[in-house]
């Protein structure tokens, strides 16, 4: 069967795979994982069946590479607390919201994988289960639990949320600007606990099956 030039695979799926490995591994290791994924994919490409789901295939390769990278990082034993604190985007295009990575990093690995593969790669839970092990239902729960925690721990626009703050701000003048970030900070720490709760709930669900 006729297969498109690999260049087309890179163009069509490269940005998606970059988002996935960034979400799974964070800013430091993502590009190495992307490179290893596409090099391995290029090597194996001639043998890929012509009717294969290319996105699912690439994410499967990326998943294996991400696990390799995670293990290698664990061996190097990099202290967890040493992520650079960056209050805002530095303006470099490769830079993305460090708060999002902090929130993703706090998720149990299984949930982080399920969220990335479902919400960023668009893979069905059946494919995700085949990749990560476990049942389709467990993959679905991991993605749902992970997303629920993320929404709590990573408020995308912490200072744009509270409707009432506008009114308060209008009546009291300045000085309330500090309140929303403080609320976000509280939400973040609560969310970390919530993440652990969600993981426990997930295990319960798996037993119930």
């Amino acid at each position, binding site marked *: 069967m006729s*297969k*498109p*030039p690999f260049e087309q695979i890179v163009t069509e799926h490269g*940005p998606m795979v970059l988002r996935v490995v960034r979400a799974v591994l964070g800013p430091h290791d993502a590009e190495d994982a992307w490179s290893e994924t596409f090099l391995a994919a*290029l090597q194996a490409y*001639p043998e890929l069946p012509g009717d294969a789901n290319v996105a699912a295939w690439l994410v499967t390769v990326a998943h294996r590479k991400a696990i390799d990278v995670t293990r290698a990082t664990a061996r190097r034993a990099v202290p967890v607390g040493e992520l650079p604190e960056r209050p805002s985007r530095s303006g470099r295009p490769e830079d993305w919201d460090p708060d999002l990575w902090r929130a993703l990093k706090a998720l149990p690995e299984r949930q982080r994988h399920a969220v990335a593969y479902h919400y960023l790669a668009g893979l069905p839970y059946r494919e995700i289960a085949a990749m990560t092990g476990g049942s389709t239902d467990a993959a679905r729960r991991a993605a749902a639990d992970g997303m629920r925690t*993320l929404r709590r721990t990573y*408020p995308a626009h912490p200072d744009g949320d*509270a409707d009432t703050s506008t009114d308060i701000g209008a009546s009291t003048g300045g000085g309330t600007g500090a309140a929303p970030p403080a*609320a976000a900070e509280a939400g973040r720490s609560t969310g970390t606990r919530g993440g652990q709760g969600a993981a426990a709930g997930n295990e319960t669900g798996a037993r119930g099956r």
Partner: protein
Amino acid sequence: MTMTATGSAGRDPFEGLPEHDDEAMARLHARLAEQAGAEGVLDVAYRTLDTPAGTLLLAATDAGVVRIAYAVQDHAAVLQQLADRVSPRVLRAPGRLDEAARQLDEYFAGRRRTFELPLDWRLSKGYRRQVLGLLPAIGYGRTESYAQVAAASGSPRAVRAVGTACATNPLPVVVPCHRVVRSDGSPGQYAGGADAKRLLLALEEA
């Protein structure tokens, strides 16, 4: 806290992760092309080159330049043919074509009369391959008729087959099928279009 959670429930948390990061993709693409070449898994490298005859597609295997195509030949279609006939391991990887691009630039600037490039002939077979092999003997600035080339090939009646060989030349410009013209001296047809043929002949006459 509750309000924050409610307020963001409908949002996509992945807004913080850009869908397209062109600078990162350019960097990763260049790295992939380089690593693929180094590891021997880049079967077909290609780039484009702007010339007075339009944008040319240049493609090379490990063995040498395998394909040159004019824009009118549809570069996407040509890349698909390369994927089908050579290997689907095709990447835009300019490095392997630096020398070919340099020599073509010199040719179009009037500073080069012959090409010294390794060529991969795998896309041309049989009689067509034999005909194309005769063309480099037609020197810069000269022309021969289809009938003369047919005679030189040892099959003087194969005039139409010579025309087909030129029309399907996988390596135009470098293998000078533009120097094969009609017996009445008019340029005749060309894979890159009649205008491109006239342009090359005028360039070489200057």
